[in-house]
């Protein structure tokens, strides 16, 4: 079948028809995983809310395993496949390389996701998504994960193949767009990640069927987190690329400097691979030098990269807004931003929450000695709900508001709810992440069924504040489930019943991307960005204060040497 291209009348984007279908299927599969993960979230949150304590212990651990796997792996990675195809085929006006292999990848991922879910819900595989040895799940738990990973790997290769085709067939001029560059970063990290995953999951699978006698626990944690942490870098690259994309779509914002933003993406590739160390800061058997060198990634180059993106994305928006005349004071550009456009509000809440809540707490936890304060407490999920939920998930939700008319050719139903949804979901997640970190600072454990230690000979009495924080976790978590569930319903209803929109022209040859003729003389000088700089300095001040408060706390503890 010959490749055809559709030109979207609403966005002017050009879609390869095969690629478009793959994007739709991957996005829908992702939303299904989010649905399952979200129902599980309700079980988790209603059990950890001490006054409710809904599920019995065995069901709680099963539901928590499913929550972690469906959210962190299946929802995010399916959606990322759609993003990869969009950033390559659509943004480069190119046909998708080998759509058949892309479909094979999709089906492997789908079969794998179903298989692992079946294993979890049969019971006897409640090992959490980290599946630390020597606790053992059923073989099909691991096999499903392996199939899923192989499928995702195929998707990454199709993405890279498409870049090669685009270059060879000259579908664009100059360099690839920044967003595509960000997606390329994500794909390269993904390949490394999946390789690490194979190194650890394949032996673990063989161990579960009895071919290998024993797996070393420290080695497992080192290699598992080489996958587990790097895969978070995929998410960061992907959602940062989406921030840039939404800024471009909503404001026509142009990166402040292509060089800086691309270098920052490159830093992710260069310095994030050894990051598994910061999951082992409170482990024996790995030395301090290794921990310090790896967690600081030779002086925090990766943190530096995120701090750069955190400034250049709002900076680009400020420049675009000031160029349109929103020049009053420091913040008119921000006040007059389209806060009622869910793509924008989701993106901006994602950026602020990721930086202030996820970023600062992440660096604190990733400091060798400070890690002792929070290792395995509920602080840790507090932190990563700020990164993967506020950062990644909310950015994906925002992008979807743009994709429904463009990719699915449907009008978004319930526009009133759409205006509200990013605030409802985003802000309740802000609160949930904060109070979980609060409870963790008081020591409350993660993955723990009962704060009251029923049945233990020496129950420990948590301070009242810890119960209060967990109660607030429960309340804000329920609001977040409503905000997230509402989004799923809204998207699914829009896809099924939303007004059908004009398909646009379909043609058999792609329109190449051409660069405009160079502007005569000096290009207009871009406006300065004092507002963004003030935001950045507020961020830095909070960061420094919080960082040193934790050192103070650490210094009051028992001596350890």
């Amino acid at each position: 079948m010959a490749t055809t291209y559709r030109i979207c009348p609403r966005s002017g984007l050009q879609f390869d028809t095969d690629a478009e279908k793959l994007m739709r299927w991957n996005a829908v599969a992702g939303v299904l995983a989010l649905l399952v993960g979200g129902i599980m979230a309700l079980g988790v949150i209603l059990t950890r809310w001490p006054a409710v304590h809904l599920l019995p212990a065995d069901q709680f651990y099963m539901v928590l395993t499913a929550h972690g796997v469906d959210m962190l792996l299946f929802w995010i990675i399916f959606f990322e496949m759609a993003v990869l195809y969009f950033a390559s085929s659509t943004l480069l006006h190119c046909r998708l390389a080998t759509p058949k292999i892309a479909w094979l990848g999709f089906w492997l991922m789908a079969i794998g996701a179903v298989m692992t879910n079946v294993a979890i819900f049969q019971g006897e595989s409640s090992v959490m998504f980290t599946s630390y040895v020597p606790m053992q799940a059923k073989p099909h738990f691991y096999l499903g994960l392996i199939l899923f990973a192989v499928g995702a790997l195929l998707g990454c290769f199709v993405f890279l193949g498409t870049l090669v085709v685009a270059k060879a067939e000259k579908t664009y001029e100059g360099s690839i767009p920044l967003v595509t560059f960000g997606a390329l970063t994500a794909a390269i990290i993904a390949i490394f990640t999946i390789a690490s995953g194979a190194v650890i999951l394949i032996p673990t699978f063989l161990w579960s069927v009895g071919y290998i006698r024993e797996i070393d626990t420290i080695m497992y944690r080192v290699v598992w987190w080489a996958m587990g942490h790097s895969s978070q870098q995929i998410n960061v690259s992907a959602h940062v690329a989406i921030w840039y994309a939404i800024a471009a779509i909503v404001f026509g914002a142009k990166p402040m400097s292509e060089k800086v933003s691309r270098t920052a993406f490159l830093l992710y590739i260069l310095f994030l691979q050894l990051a598994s160390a910061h999951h082992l800061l409170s482990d024996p058997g790995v030395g301090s030098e290794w921990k310090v060198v790896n967690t600081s990634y030779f002086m925090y180059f990766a943190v530096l990269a995120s701090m750069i993106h955190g400034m250049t994305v709002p900076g680009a928006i400020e420049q675009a807004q000031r160029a349109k005349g929103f020049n009053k004071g420091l913040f008119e550009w921000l006040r007059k931003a389209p806060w009622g456009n869910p793509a924008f509000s989701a993106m901006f809440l994602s950026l602020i929450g990721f930086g202030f809540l996820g970023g600062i707490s992440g660096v604190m936890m990733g400091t060798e000695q400070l890690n002792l304060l929070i290792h395995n407490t509920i602080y840790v999920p507090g932190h990563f709900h700020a990164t993967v939920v506020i950062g990644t998930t909310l950015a994906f939700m925002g992008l979807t508001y743009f994709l429904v008319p463009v990719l699915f050719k449907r009008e978004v139903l319930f526009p009133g709810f759409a205006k509200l949804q990013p605030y409802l979901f985003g802000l309740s997640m802000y609160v949930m992440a904060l109070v979980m970190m609060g409870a963790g600072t008081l020591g409350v454990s993660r993955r723990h069924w009962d704060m009251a230690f029923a049945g233990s000979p020496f129950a420990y009495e948590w301070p009242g504040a810890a119960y209060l924080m967990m109660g607030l976790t429960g309340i804000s978590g329920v609001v977040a489930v409503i905000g997230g569930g509402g989004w799923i319903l809204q998207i699914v209803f829009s896809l099924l019943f939303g007004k059908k929109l004009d398909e646009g022209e379909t043609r058999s040859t792609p329109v190449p991307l051409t660069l405009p003729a160079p502007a005569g003389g000096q290009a207009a000088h871009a406006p300065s960005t004092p507002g963004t700089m003030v935001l950045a300095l507020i961020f830095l001040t909070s960061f420094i204060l919080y960082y040193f408060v934790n050192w103070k706390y650490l210094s009051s503890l028992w001596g350890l040497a």
Partner: protein
Amino acid sequence: MSAISPPAERVWWKAPLDKLELTWIAIAFVWSLVMFGMMVYWHIYGNQNLANETYKTTKEMFAAKTQAMVDKYTVRTETDQQIPVVKPPAGSDVYLIGRLWAWWPILELEKGKQYKLHLSAMDYMHGFSLQPQNINIQVHPNYEHVLKISPNQSGTYSIVCNEYCGIGHHTMVGRIYVK
């Protein structure tokens, strides 16, 4: 041209940088150096550093060493499970076992004295979470982690297990007395 299109300037790598952007990069870089420096500084001048002393062991060996300590220094037992309370002399080697689903034995330590605490697990991984101090350390089977600890306040401390270890995980609480 925006972030979703190829850069309008073909030689984008030669475009000059924005001044504020450059300032921010410099500040962020200096801050990263400070944070790196803090970890090293604390190793030299700080009092809370996780020990690197770790040995390969076996469950049998570690259980035998713990039993020897219990036989020598038990001062009484507690609860109807007769859990021994062990009071080893200051400065000595102290052993603590994590197993499904208990920390064994109970320790009684003196304030202001240093002990060499040996930690290991008998089955799955466990999490040593000392409350209300909030010191959290991963405990592995087949590895013996040796920490020099100096309790600086007297009181009754609990050891909560905070690495998920199965259905009875929430009942796994141990005890340390500091007198």
